């Protein structure tokens, strides 16, 4: 569905990517085609249709859409692979008893500990989703795993350093970002512990790895997670590219004049743009018309919930979970950031 609503491409573009989904469905029923064969067919078809495709993609709008789309995907893939490797390692080599010992028994205490542990994962948000999924599967309290999921992309050393570099004249921005992100992550963890129901979480249908060697289980997990999360990453990248290429920046100028509206505008922008958390500080710094608090909101909301993340969470934890989790995170993140901004900035 995203294929059709994203772009106004020529008919050639629409027919080329369309075969997979339909064909896969057919394959499921009448297993006539195997997936490698199908892949070869699609590639051949695309090579044959190359010149009409090029024509359809020649307009500047489509070109910049494609560039941003490919850029987001290419940029996020290494981090996704890192996260997938880490999560596979957790799933296969770390015994569940380790987490039982490492985390405090009381969930209320485990939440802030897990949130702080997020500071160790040196990556952006694409890496944290598979890792959090592996943690849940490994028997960690969901509340703690969610706190980790939210805090890891925002408070790790790389991101904080980038923030310090981007705001040379406002060093308190780094502290504010750290505190606000941690606050929101813990609040979300506690909220989940209070209200969350396990049946909202649909843990990914990983077959138990009995009978398989450790090596096989490891690579199976890597393959499955990459294909799965990668697909959702592509979906998110398409949405982000559409916004980057199609929404005029002048809208922001009108929003910047009113304090309340500016906070909301930057929060929504953070969700829509889906910028990697290692780079968003620079983008925030360039939004010169906005107040520091509004920029803080941008920095806190962005790593916690955006289109790309929403798609990946829906894939990892199930759609029902993502639909409830995302709005709550958004509201809490905006609130926490405004509060911190009012106190610190």
């Amino acid at each position, binding site marked *: 569905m995203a*294929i059709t609503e994203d772009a106004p491409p020529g008919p050639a573009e629409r027919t080329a*990517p369309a075969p*997979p*989904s339909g064909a*896969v*469905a057919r394959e499921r029923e009448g297993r006539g085609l195997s*997936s490698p064969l199908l892949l070869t067919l699609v590639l051949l078809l*695309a090579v044959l249709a*190359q010149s009409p*495709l090029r024509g359809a993609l020649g307009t*500047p*709008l489509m070109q*910049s859409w*494609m*560039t*941003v*789309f*490919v*850029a987001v*995907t*290419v*940029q996020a*893939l*290494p*981090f*996704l*692979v*890192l996260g997938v*490797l880490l999560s596979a390692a957790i799933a296969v080599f770390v015994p569940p008893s380790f987490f039982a010992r490492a985390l405090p028994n009381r969930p209320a205490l485990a939440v802030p500990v897990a949130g702080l542990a997020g500071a160790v994962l040196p990556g952006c948000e694409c890496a944290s989703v598979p890792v959090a999924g592996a943690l849940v599967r490994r028997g960690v309290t969901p509340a703690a795993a969610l706190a980790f999921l939210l805090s890891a992309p925002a408070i790790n050393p790389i991101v904080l350093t980038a923030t310090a570099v*981007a705001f*040379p004249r406002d060093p308190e921005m780094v502290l504010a970002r750290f505190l606000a992100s941690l606050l929101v992550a813990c609040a979300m963890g506690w909220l989940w512990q209070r209200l969350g129901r396990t049946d909202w979480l649909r843990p990914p249908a990983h077959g138990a790895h009995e009978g398989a060697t450790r090596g*096989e289980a490891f*690579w*199976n997990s*890597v*393959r*499955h997670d*990459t*294909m*799965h999360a*990668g*697909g959702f990453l*592509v979906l998110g990248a*398409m949405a982000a*590219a559409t916004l*980057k*290429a199609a929404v*005029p*920046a*002048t809208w922001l*100028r009108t929003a910047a004049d009113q304090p309340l509206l500016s906070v909301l505008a930057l929060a929504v922008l953070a969700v829509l743009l889906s910028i*990697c958390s290692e*780079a*968003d500080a*620079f*983008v925030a710094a*360039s939004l*010169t*018309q906005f107040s520091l608090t509004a920029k803080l909101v941008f920095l806190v909301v962005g790593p916690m919930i955006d289109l790309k993340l929403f798609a990946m969470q829906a*894939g990892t934890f199930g759609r029902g979970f993502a639909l409830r989790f995302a709005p709550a995170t958004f509201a809490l993140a905006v609130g926490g950031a405004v509060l911190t901004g009012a106190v610190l900035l």
Partner: protein
Amino acid sequence: MFLLGAALLHAGTTGLYLRYVKAGLQPLLLASGVVLIAAAAATAWYERRAAKAAGAAEPATAEAQAHSHPEPRISWLLLLPLLSLILVAPPALGSYSALRAGTALQKPYGYGRLPGANPAPLSVVDYASRAAYDHGRSLHGRPVRVTGFLALDHSGAPYLVRMALNCCAADAQPVKIALTGTLPPVLRPDAWLEVTGTYTPKLTHDPVNNGPIPYLKVTSARPVPTPHDPYDETWNN
């Protein structure tokens, strides 16, 4: 999956990746490409072994088939970036994106010494910040040479632009210099130009975000090929 890894390796080794992400990501790209290929190889190897085992014990075939669960359907979406990377290889961001975003010029800490050559080679960002925030004092009236691509706004006014990039093309922001003086008669957007000129105190403001856009009085301009790395990564780093 093998294809994806191979495509990443290809993009990483040929420099194609510079159109999309910053240079610092190259080792990460290569490493993840290797990991993906390794995973594909491991999958193939284990499936082969399973098939062999199934061949030895005939009734196990059905069980083996059930065990190799198919890829989730969503993973077919991974084909899209793959196809566009292999077949189309979209170009780096150009004038279209540059005109839609406001100039990202920021006041620098200080100004380094001018390069010794005459005219002094400067980046777009360097000239723009010296001209906009230092009123050209650190230029000492010397001619400068700047390389960037052309963008024409709706009234046809020419700008020399370089996109500055922090992580990937999604966060690229333009830095613009407006051009006056003697220009080539035909101006084509997205064409790369090497412009020689002198400082002029004229300054305008970007209609998009009100950022400063300094002018450069052009004395000569010549077309150049697209540089190896089309983005400017020197600032912010």
